[in-house]
C-alpha cells in the first residue's frame, strides 16, 4: 500500500477538527472545576454563617469582646450587677485547652513508642498486629468512647481521687485513648518516610540500633511527628460528644482536675437545642462555635508551617 500524504487543505481540516478526545477533556475539566467550586462555596458559607452569627453577640447584643474572652461567669440568660449579660467564656476556653494539651502530652510518648516499635523494632509483628488494631481504634464511634468513659473512667476517678468523678481528668483519659490511634498511625507514617539509607549510614558507623533510632530516625522524622501531635490536638480540641459525657458540664473555672468543668464543644452540644434563634443565649453559643472554628484554623496553620519548615532541611 502506498503511503500517501493528504493535501495541505485536508491536513489543516483534520488537525483543526475538534476531536472526541478534545471534547472529553473539556468536559472533564468542567466537572472537576465545579467540584472544586462547590467545596470552596461550602467552606466559605460555613465560615460566613458561623462568623455572622458569632459576631452578633458583640454587634447586636453589645457584649464586650474582652469581657467575652476573659469573663469567668457563663450565664447568658442572666444579667450581672451592672446590667451586663454574663457571657464570659474563659472557663470553657481554659477547659478546652487544658484537656487538649493534657491528652496530647500523655498520648505523644505512647504514640511515638508504638510507632517506633511498629517500624524499627518489630516491623513484622507491627504490620500484622499493631497496624490493624490502630486502624480499628480510629474507627470506633466517639459515643462508644464516651459511654466507656462514663461507665468505667468516671467511677474510677471518683473512687481514686474523690469528687463526682466528672471533670478534666476523666475527659483527658477518654481523649487520650481517642487521639492515641491517630497520633500513632501518623507518627508511623513519619518514621516510614525516613529513608532507609539514613539508618544504614548510622549503623555502618557503629551506632547501635537504639542510637540510630534516637539520634537519626527520630530527628529526621521530627516535623512529621510534630504534625502528628498537632493533628491529635486538633481532634481533641474539636471532640464534643465523648467529652461532654464525662466532663460534668459545669461552666466554671476548674480548680482541680476532678472538678466538673466544661469545654467549648460540651457547652455547645448541651446548649444549642435549648435556646431560641436570635436570642442572646443562642448568639453566645455561636460565638463559642466561632472560637472553635478559629482554633481549628490555627491548628491547620501550625501543621502547614511545620510542613514547610520540614522541607527546608
Amino acid at each position: 500500500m502506498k503511503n500517501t500524504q493528504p493535501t495541505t487543505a485536508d491536513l489543516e481540516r483534520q488537525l483543526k477538527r475538534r476531536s472526541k478526545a478534545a471534547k472529553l477533556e473539556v468536559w472533564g475539566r468542567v466537572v472537576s472545576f465545579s467540584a472544586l467550586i462547590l467545596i470552596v462555596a461550602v467552606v466559605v458559607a460555613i465560615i460566613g454563617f458561623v462568623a455572622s452569627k458569632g459576631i452578633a453577640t458583640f454587634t447586636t447584643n453589645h457584649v464586650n469582646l474582652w469581657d467575652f474572652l476573659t469573663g469567668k461567669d457563663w450565664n447568658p440568660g442572666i444579667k450581672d450587677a451592672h446590667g451586663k449579660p454574663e457571657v464570659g467564656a474563659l472557663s470553657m476556653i481554659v477547659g478546652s485547652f487544658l484537656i487538649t494539651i493534657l491528652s496530647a502530652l500523655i498520648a505523644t510518648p505512647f504514640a511515638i513508642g508504638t510507632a517506633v516499635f511498629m517500624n524499627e523494632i518489630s516491623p513484622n509483628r507491627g504490620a500484622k498486629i499493631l497496624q490493624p488494631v490502630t486502624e480499628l481504634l480510629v474507627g470506633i464511634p466517639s459515643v462508644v468512647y464516651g459511654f466507656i468513659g462514663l461507665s468505667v473512667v468516671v467511677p474510677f476517678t471518683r473512687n481514686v481521687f474523690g469528687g463526682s468523678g466528672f471533670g478534666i481528668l476523666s475527659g483527658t483519659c477518654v481523649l487520650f485513648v481517642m487521639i492515641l490511634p491517630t497520633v500513632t498511625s501518623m507518627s508511623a507514617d513519619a518514621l516510614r518516610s525516613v529513608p532507609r539509607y539514613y539508618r544504614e549510614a548510622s549503623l555502618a558507623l557503629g551506632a547501635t540500633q537504639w542510637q540510630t533510632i534516637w539520634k537519626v530516625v527520630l530527628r529526621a522524622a521530627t516535623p512529621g511527628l510534630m504534625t502528628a501531635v498537632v493533628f491529635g490536638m486538633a481532634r481533641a480540641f474539636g471532640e464534643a460528644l465523648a467529652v461532654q459525657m464525662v466532663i460534668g458540664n459545669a461552666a466554671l473555672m476548674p480548680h482541680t482536675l476532678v472538678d466538673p468543668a466544661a469545654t467549648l464543644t460540651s457547652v455547645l452540644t448541651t446548649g444549642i437545642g435549648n435556646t431560641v434563634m436570635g436570642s442572646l443565649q443562642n448568639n453566645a453559643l455561636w460565638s463559642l462555635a466561632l472560637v472553635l472554628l478559629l482554633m481549628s484554623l490555627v491548628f491547620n496553620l501550625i501543621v502547614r508551617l511545620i510542613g514547610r519548615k520540614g522541607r527546608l532541611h
Partner: protein
Amino acid sequence: MFVNNDVSKQDMEERHIVQPHDPDHPVVLSTEDLHVYYGKSEALYEGDLKFAQNQITALIGPSGSGKSTFLRSLNRMNDRIATVTGKIMYRGVDVNQPDVDVYEMRRRIGMVFQRPNPFAKSIYDNIAFALRLRGVTAKKDLDEKVERSLRQAALWDQVKDELTKSALALSGGQAQRLCIARAIALRPDILLLDEPASALDPVSTSQLEDTLLKLKEHYTIIIVTHNMQQAARISEYTAFFNQGRVLEYDTTSHIFTNPRVQVTSDYVSGNFG
C-alpha cells in the same frame, strides 16, 4: 542469567583463585566457607577471599553476581535481612559469631554506600556524629578529628569555611567524600565501599579515585565497582564474581591482561554483563 548453560557447566571446573601473599602487606581480613542466604535462596557461595593490608581490592562482576552481598556481609550489615554462615576472620578473630559486638566491629570495619547518604545535619555534625556516640565531647578534640577526616577525604579546602552549613547542600561528589570522611573519623582499619562512584560524574569520580589512592596509606580498602576501568586504575587485587561465586581472584594486572577463566575474559573485555 547472562551466560548460557554450557558456559555455566564449564564454570564449575573453571575457577582460578590466587590469594595475595605479599609479606609487606599481610592479610587482615579473610572469609572461610562463607555462604549468604536470603530466605531459602542462596545468594552467595564459594566466596572465600583474603584481603591484604593497605591495598585496594576491587570486587567486579555483573549485576546480581553477589559482590555487594559479599561486601555487606563483611561488616555484618546483612544480619537483619540475610543468613550469613561461615567464618569472617578479622586479624585472627572470627567476627561472624553471635557473641561479637557488631557495633564495635563496624567501628573497625567502616562502610560507604553507593548513594551519598549524608544526614540532614551540618557538615561538622555529620562527621562528629560517630565520634559523639563514642563519647568524644571535648570541642578541641572533635574539631581536630573533623578537620583530619575532611583533609584525608580531600574535602577540607572546599568546606572549611562552611562547616555549619547543611550537608544536603553539597554536590554529589562532595557529599560522597563527606561520607568517606564520616566513615574514617573513627579511624577504622578497613574501609568497605559499595559502588561509591556510580552516582557521580566523571570529574568527581576521578577525584574520588585520587582520594582512595591516598587513603590506601592508612586503610585497607575493599571496593565494589561496576566500572572496570576504575578497578584497573586503582586496585592491586581484583575478584571477579559471577552468579554468586568468585570465579577468579588475582592481582589486578593479571585479571585484566591475562584472565585465566573464559567468563572473566568475556566480562573484562565487555562481551557480556
